[in-house]
């Protein structure tokens, strides 16, 4: 097959460019959207091309920013809002949960507030407790929002377009920092939405965002070393979860690992376990294994970060644990800590 590479970052830029170019009513607003860094490069050049009445540099005032987006949407425009860290969105939760999520419902369908909100989540370089949080669970608990976590350049591109063309309410795209520099072979596969990212028969790994890539890395490792066949599901949409795809997989494997960037407690992992147990009660042969950060704030020191952020090494461990009754590290190949660390530094695709 042909190859064409695109970074996640460039995919975000291209997708926003397309929305701005194809729909006159699209407006981009956020802190740093017009600066020389351009939200990890994703907004570079847009203000120059579309002008300062399409692209707005915003004050440091997140509550009003979200409310202004609602007003723009109510009055006929389609706002795209950016947050350089999802942590800052906690300042606008009142607008998002008490207004945006409810507008359509509470007015009985009279009003709708379609919009796209992009927010950056996740690790890298000692971001610490206030610059690294994954808030998908909070945004998904309350009805009314659509929350997505695109795991690839292709997913992201399709999702932005879907948000614009098909969704009648706010869509929140949570984008993992480390993904921006990863590149993807966009000719390779073109999944959109919840999808099986790798077919397999022994164990099901349900993953979100960058954890999809971690899961694929783990799947490759255990296949190479022990011919274990993992099915990897890219959950993609966190609200209104596509549980059938998981249930179908469990019918084959009866074993599940859930890998998410957020806490398991009241998180995606808990919600998935609920859905699996409610809709596929007898399918699980063993308790689910969960790969998430432990329940503490993010520590800054890299010495602690390595125990905090879940890695593909941990997924490998869980795979063995589920499949091998008396798992023994000495007989089964484990990636060394440095192998895992290197994979982050060096290998950025193409996937």
């Amino acid at each position, binding site marked *: 097959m042909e190859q064409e590479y695109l970074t996640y970052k460039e995919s975000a830029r291209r997708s926003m460019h397309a929305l701005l170019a194809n729909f006159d009513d699209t407006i981009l607003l956020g802190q740093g959207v017009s600066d020389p860094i351009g939200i990890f490069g994703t907004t570079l050049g847009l203000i120059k091309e579309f002008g300062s009445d399409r692209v707005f540099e915003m004050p440091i005032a997140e509550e009003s920013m979200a409310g202004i987006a*609602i*007003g723009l949407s109510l009055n006929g425009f389609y706002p795209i809002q950016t947050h350089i860290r999802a942590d800052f969105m906690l300042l606008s939760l009142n607008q998002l949960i008490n207004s945006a999520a409810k507008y359509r419902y509470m007015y009985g369908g009279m009003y709708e507030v379609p919009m796209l909100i992009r927010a950056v989540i996740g690790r890298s370089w000692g971001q610490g407790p206030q610059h690294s949080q994954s808030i998908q669970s909070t945004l998904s608990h309350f009805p009314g929002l659509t929350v997505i976590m695109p795991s690839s350049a292709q997913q992201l591109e399709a999702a932005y377009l879907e948000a614009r063309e098909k969704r009648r309410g706010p869509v929140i795209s949570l984008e993992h920092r480390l993904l921006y520099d990863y590149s993807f072979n966009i000719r390779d596969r073109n999944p959109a939405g919840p999808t099986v990212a790798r077919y397999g028969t022994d164990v099901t790994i349900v993953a979100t965002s960058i954890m999809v890539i971690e899961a694929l890395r783990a799947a490759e490792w255990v296949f190479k070393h022990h011919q274990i066949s993992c099915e990897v599901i890219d959950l993609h949409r966190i609200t209104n979860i596509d549980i059938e795809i998981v249930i179908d997989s469990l019918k084959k494997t009866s074993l599940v690992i859930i890998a998410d960037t957020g806490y398991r407690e009241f998180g995606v992992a808990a919600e998935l376990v609920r859905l699996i147990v409610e809709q596929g009660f007898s399918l699980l042969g063993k308790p689910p294994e969960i790969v998430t950060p432990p329940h503490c704030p993010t520590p800054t020191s890299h010495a602690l970060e390595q125990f905090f952020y879940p890695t593909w090494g941990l997924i490998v461990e869980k795979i063995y644990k589920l499949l091998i009754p008396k798992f023994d590290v000495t007989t089964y190949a484990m990636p060394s800590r440095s192998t895992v660390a290197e994979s982050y530094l060096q290998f950025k695709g193409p996937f």
Partner: protein
Amino acid sequence: MTLKIINMSDRYENLFRSTLRIRRIEERIASIYASDRIQSPIHLSIGQEAVSVGVCAELSKEDLAFGTYRGHALYLAKGGDLRLMMAELFGKVTGFAKGKAGSMHLADSAVGVMGCSAIVGSTIPHATGAGLAAKIAGNDQVVAVFFGESATNQGVFHECLNFATLHRLPVLFVCEDNQMAIHTLNADITGYSLRELVSAYSIKYAAVENGMDFIHIANRAQSSITRIRRGEGPEFLHVHTCRYVQHVGPGTDVGFGVRSEALINKWMAKDPLYLADDLVKKFISEINAEIDEAIDFADSSEFPGASQLLEDIS
């Protein structure tokens, strides 16, 4: 906007009638409240109607208005449909929101009532965003947002004044100052002068001391709206007024130990509705008939059913 070509006394009568109509509607709501046909909180504007009446008289149908849980007067003054409102208050499926909104969240897209929120201060940024939309669209739409004096405590108010002035948005901020936040005197929680605060943003500020005077309010609003429509940026209208009734519900808060009857009487003595029996007589039966009809409509409408519970979510 047709008001401009009618003569002064017609204009007075128009605004008088509009104020009286809202007063009577809310009095009726209060009087039937004990019947439990309205099973949700009501925040009445009785005493404050002139603010909405005066400002909305100067807005066109295409102009937009945003409000609060205390929204009946605004909704009606902006031209919202009385029947749809009454049915909504009664929780009926014929209400504008099929019963999902109730009294705290009035809206009518046909006349630009863009929503009322029960979170203090939260529609101020919506109006600011709608103003930005109008500016980008390049039409001459004006956006008005109504809020209480205590809503100005919220940080988002500051954030919006900043954004509105920065982009010279066509927004009229209308502060209905009844001096009260529920049962707390605003003075006990507020340490700034609105005039100075608003002026610090280079936003034009005007105060109306007598919030019963709908003509004066309309005149002030007219000047502001004309300038805003010309692209001269946001303005602020601060109207001092008095809510005769308690914060929520149909009763009074006199006797609670916060406000005195004398204070309310002082305002009532300035209230045109109490000073012109002839005009009241002229309009009252027509108004009452309209209200009767709306209540009948509400009464005879159906409630929403279980199947509607999960509609219009996302």
